[in-house]
């Protein structure tokens, strides 16, 4: 703790010194704080994710003396309630009402779509720290829209090869029937079928239904070689438990990391052996990750997770852009800001990554497995994977 605070004091001092060197014409801009609008879920199902992202981002900024490009930062927090109906309104409120320089958000894909739409309309700078909806770095991609997390396709696609390599021929896929579910299953199915695998059945449940028993019975009757599932949050917790209780453990269960991340403790022994792919793993054995996790724990009092990483990297991306333009957020510096952010190489706890032309991370996808109640990393399932960015005109 003391070590960290001393370090941040040193950094703050450095930032202060740097501020003294910038030309005077920025003097007015500097006195005004950079306004960063955090539009995230602070209530409801995704509240914990919103908090983690917020902490991660603030930690990244604090590590730079609480400044971006030499300017103090003011955060404007807005609870998006994970309500897509209010997405565009809330985004407009931050952009037009609170006049934020950067808009950061959010978790829920539907809300993020609304934000992306408003960002396209207004040209506001948007960083998406979680929502994986493909369109944000696909048809809706724009110079001012960035994503530091993943596209839904991205973590799922490599699992297709993993399944094939493990000798599976017939797989059942199951998810909720909504955009993220369709895209994630689509990613896996693409990876699996292009190698010759067969999807026996795709089961799509109404979102957010959590009574799986009927469908587990159905899976048992289909007797596939493996099951690929996409669920998150409470649905993930319950699905894995029910899957084990229904005696299906003889059929390997696969998914993206969301199937176990954050709910592993609740799943207990039921999660044993579950294979997942994701762009991060808590157990990632790198110095960067270990350092990050320790600092995050000290900073927020909670264990870091993938959301904290994504929040942290959003903060890093902000800092890189702002440093490049020395804190100038005026329209004249916009092109330079975007160029610097697009070219950023981010030294993330997940491993360094760059951004694709559609502004989505080009990143390693790890293969993980639950063993003895712990998520362990088996290796990299796909190195430097880029989202195909279907429909994006600038990619």
């Amino acid at each position, binding site marked *: 703790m003391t070590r960290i605070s001393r370090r941040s004091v040193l950094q703050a001092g450095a930032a202060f010194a740097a501020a003294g060197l910038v030309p005077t014409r920025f003097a007015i801009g500097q006195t005004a704080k950079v306004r960063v609008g955090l539009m995230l879920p602070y209530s409801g199902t995704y509240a914990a994710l919103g908090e983690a992202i917020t902490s991660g981002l603030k930690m990244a900024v604090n590590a730079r003396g609480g400044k971006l490009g030499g300017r103090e930062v003011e955060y404007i927090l807005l609870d998006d309630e994970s309500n897509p109906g209010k997405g565009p309104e809330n985004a407009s409120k931050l952009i037009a009402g609170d006049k934020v320089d950067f808009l950061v958000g959010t978790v829920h894909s539907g809300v993020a779509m609304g934000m992306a739409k408003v960002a396209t309309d207004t040209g506001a700078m948007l960083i998406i720290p979680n929502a994986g909806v493909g369109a944000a770095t696909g048809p809706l991609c724009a110079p001012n829209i960035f994503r530091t997390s993943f596209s839904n396709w991205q973590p799922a696609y490599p699992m297709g090869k993993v399944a094939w390599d493990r000798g599976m021929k017939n797989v059942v896929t199951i998810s909720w029937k909504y955009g993220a579910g369709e895209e994630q299953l689509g990613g896996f199915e693409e990876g699996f079928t292009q190698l010759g695998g067969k999807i026996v059945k795709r089961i799509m449940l109404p979102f957010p239904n959590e009574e799986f028993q009927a469908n587990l019975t159905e899976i048992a009757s289909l007797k596939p070689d493996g099951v690929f599932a996409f669920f998150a949050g*409470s649905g993930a*917790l319950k699905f894995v438990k029910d899957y084990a*209780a229904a*005696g299906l453990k003889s*059929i390997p269960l696969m998914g993206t990391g969301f199937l176990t991340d954050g709910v592993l403790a609740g799943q207990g022994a039921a999660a044993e052996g579950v294979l997942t792919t994701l762009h991060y793993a808590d157990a990632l054995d790198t110095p960067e990750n270990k350092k990050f996790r320790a600092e995050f724990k000290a900073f927020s009092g909670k264990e870091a997770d993938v959301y904290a990483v994504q929040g942290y990297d959003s903060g890093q991306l902000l800092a890189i852009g702002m440093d490049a333009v020395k804190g100038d957020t005026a329209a004249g510096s916009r092109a330079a800001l975007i160029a610097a952010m697009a070219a950023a190489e981010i030294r993330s706890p997940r491993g360094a990554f760059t951004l694709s032309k559609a502004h989505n991370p080009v990143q390693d996808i790890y293969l993980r497995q639950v063993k003895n109640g712990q998520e362990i990393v088996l290796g990299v399932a796909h190195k430097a994977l880029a989202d195909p960015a279907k429909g994006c005109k600038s990619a």
Partner: protein
Amino acid sequence: MDIWFFLIQVLNGIQYGLLLFLVASGLTLIFGIMGIINLAHGSFYMLGAYLTFWLLQSVDSLLLAIVLALPISAVVGYLIEALLVRVLYRRDHLDQVLLTYGLILIFNEAQRMLWGGDIHGVKVPAALNWSIPLTDSLSYPVYRIAISAVCAALAVGMYFVIQRTRFGMWIRAGASNRDMVAALGINVKLLFGAVFALGAVLAALSGAIAAPISSIGPGMGDTVLIICFVVVVIGGVGSIKGAFLGALLIGLADTFGKVLAPDFASFSVYAVMAVVLLLKPRGLFA
């Protein structure tokens, strides 16, 4: 789907239906006797689940946690009746709807302030944490069977209480003619408080015993509430027997809807309700 799997699906449907009955019985009881429409019923379900989760951090046994959670729920229920709901008996249903709607918001926020937004799970007790193999690939979790047994036992128990005891007589009198309860010289205040607390306990018990097979998280009461409304409407408001059959009907409709017409699984439940109402506007057993 061969006959074997068909039978297992029937079992799934009945098990889900029995659990629904336990939640819905409290809702229909409160209405039958008190004429109160309680939107916050789902919140008691959530309360039961969270209390169980919370108590399990201090005690080892699920059974003990549930046993401890029930009196707490009863007290919460009784206090809400005494402090808020009591004012509403002379008001119309609209005010009841609104007040209990306000209660939902408060419950949801209180849950968040007390237990945060994380999603939790509760372990199935070791003694019941095994499955009966049914086919080579499928086994049936014993805990689910245990839940069904508890629900069925409570249903039978409730039937006897209602048919054979004085308390049951009041319930029947209340369901058919609410003014009569007062005319029978019963301490209405106490009865209503007790009934509301009982309703809360039934919902909390459902949430508690379902905790090991569900995920405990924010907003978990809302989904349960709406489906219970459907059950109660189908069965006939105030009728325990109706709630029982309605719950089984919905359990089966939901289960088979998911397998046969997954695109309209939730919708099918409401379609069943619409058909019942078309034939019997006041439910099956009003």
